[in-house]
């Protein structure tokens, strides 16, 4: 291939400068046009809907209503419930995914026989589409075809094999369990990559100096992992707070809104009640909360990094 290019002859004069200047934009333009048309324009529209009365089936709707939607939200019990559930769902999922993922990454860090195979198999849940994760776990919790109710009864944790997904007090644990199952590989993979980039000599040197395994973990592993942990936990929190698939598939927000989170509530309002204005207002609140969370984490990180310097 290079030979045929060489055959074209000696060096030519440099191409027009104008072309060189627009060239990068030619490469990026197709992607940018698509992103602007299908993400940024709808995003702007969505923000404007939050202050409008937009009903799908009502052609007369569309007038500006100011802050009415937000006032309605203050008195909306379902919204307040969804807000509390979002915190609970996100915190429980992130903490469990992170801790179990960290332990798995530590277990996989040192070489042993068959590591490649074990790694491929434990990471398999990552490949399972989220709607299948939801269905799979809904069936596991189903007393007719699933083993979990029977096991919980045998362990004495449940008086009779019933479906926890229809129990208001316990239903949220169903989607959380499914989410943890599907999410452990993400943390294990990213933390494993970070662990393997730690120079091995550091551990050897510390061992020669007489540091115990625990001391080595606290003074070498933890500081090296910290930046990855902050980034992955931040991204994952945002992602999970927005992640409605499992809830939609497993409980559809029920029983009686007990598993409704903000993102699933947005879908319910938009596609069951067809109230696009109110749905967009709820989405805007979710966006504001997540931005606030991101900013505070980034500021916290800056503070911590400053202290270390």
């Amino acid at each position, binding site marked *: 291939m290079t030979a045929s290019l060489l055959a074209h002859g000696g060096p030519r004069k440099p191409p027009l400068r104008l072309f060189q200047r627009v060239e990068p934009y030619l490469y990026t333009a197709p992607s940018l046009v698509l992103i602007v*048309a299908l993400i940024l324009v709808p995003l702007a529209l969505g923000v404007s809907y939050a202050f409008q009365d937009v009903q799908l089936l009502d052609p007369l709707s569309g007038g500006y209503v100011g802050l009415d939607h937000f006032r309605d939200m203050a008195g909306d019990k379902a919204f307040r419930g969804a807000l509390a559930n979002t915190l609970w769902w996100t915190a429980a999922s992130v903490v469990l995914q992170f801790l179990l993922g960290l332990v798995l990454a530590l277990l996989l860090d040192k070489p042993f026989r068959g590591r490649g195979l074990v790694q491929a198999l434990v990471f398999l849940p990552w490949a399972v589409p989220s709607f299948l994760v939801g269905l799979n776990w809904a*069936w596991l919790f189903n007393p007719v075809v699933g083993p979990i109710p029977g096991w919980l009864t045998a362990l004495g944790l449940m008086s009779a094999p019933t479906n926890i997904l229809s129990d208001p007090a316990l239903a949220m644990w169903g989607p959380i369990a499914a989410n943890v199952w599907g999410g452990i590989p993400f943390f294990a993979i990213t933390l494993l990559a970070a662990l393997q980039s730690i120079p091995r000599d550091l551990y050897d040197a510390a061992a020669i100096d007489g540091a115990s395994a625990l001391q080595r973990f606290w003074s070498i592993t933890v500081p090296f992992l910290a930046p990855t942990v902050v980034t992955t936990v931040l991204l994952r929190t945002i992602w999970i707070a927005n992640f409605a698939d499992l809830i939609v598939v497993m409980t559809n927000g029920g029983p009686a809104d007990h598993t409704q989170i903000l993102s699933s509530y947005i879908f319910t309002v938009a596609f069951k009640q067809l109230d696009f204005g109110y749905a967009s207002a709820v989405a805007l609140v979710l966006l504001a909360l997540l931005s606030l969370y991101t900013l505070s984490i980034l500021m916290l990180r800056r503070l911590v990094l400053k202290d270390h310097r």
Partner: protein
Amino acid sequence: MTASARRLKGGLRAAALSLYLAFALFPLFWLLKVSVTPNILLYSEGIRMWPSRMTLDHYAYVLTHSQFPVFFRNSSIVAGGTAVCVTLLAALAGYAMSRFRFRGKAVIVVLMLITQMFPLAMLVAPIFRMMASVGLTNNLLGLVVVYTAFNVPFATFLMQSFFDGIPKDLEEAAMIDGATRFVAFRHIVLPLTLPGIAATLGFVFTAAWSELLFALMLISDNQVSTFPVGLLTFVSKFSVDFGQMMAAAVMALVPAGFFFLLIQRYLVQGLTAGAVKG
């Protein structure tokens, strides 16, 4: 460390890993088990680990008497089309991000990062209205367009990381010899990036194959349903036939599993490049 302490540690590690393996694989095993259990045994044998008699009837029924082959075809078209479009666009954009320095590059990076951060639910209503106004609801092309836009940012970061790994000298040598940059890109850089392209195809295919909420919203006609939508409708309508549903679920897993094997090696690079796919 003494030999017995080391053996104890190895034993603990093996025990812990076995627990993880059991947790990761059991749900999938159960799916497979119910899908091959004859209906009469499903209720009588309860939670036995394996049925006393196996059957492939559920698979046969799903393949011949249900709409799942149609859903399967629709999903393949949507996921395949999206994967090809995204990879093409992301290869171009990723190449520009890797090789050029230009005005507005930082803006593009920020723009792409923003698309990964805000709730997609924010786009539900506007996208539905926009697609309806151009007649792209209940349309596979509409899904391909939307999915392509959603996946381009991540795929661009991913492709950029692959291009960054290829020395600039190669194409610069070709350009000194008179090739245009685009020719050098096509004939020298792209062939070297083939594994990266395969990984990007795999990532995007898996994402598009799994997408549920936008498909639920944009598709109401069974003839153009994708697999997730079809399976969910099936579940809510005929929630009694567990064997058939699980047989369908196992079949939906096959393409995802295949692409997982394809991209397994790139998982670490991919997730650290974008760190967004769930």
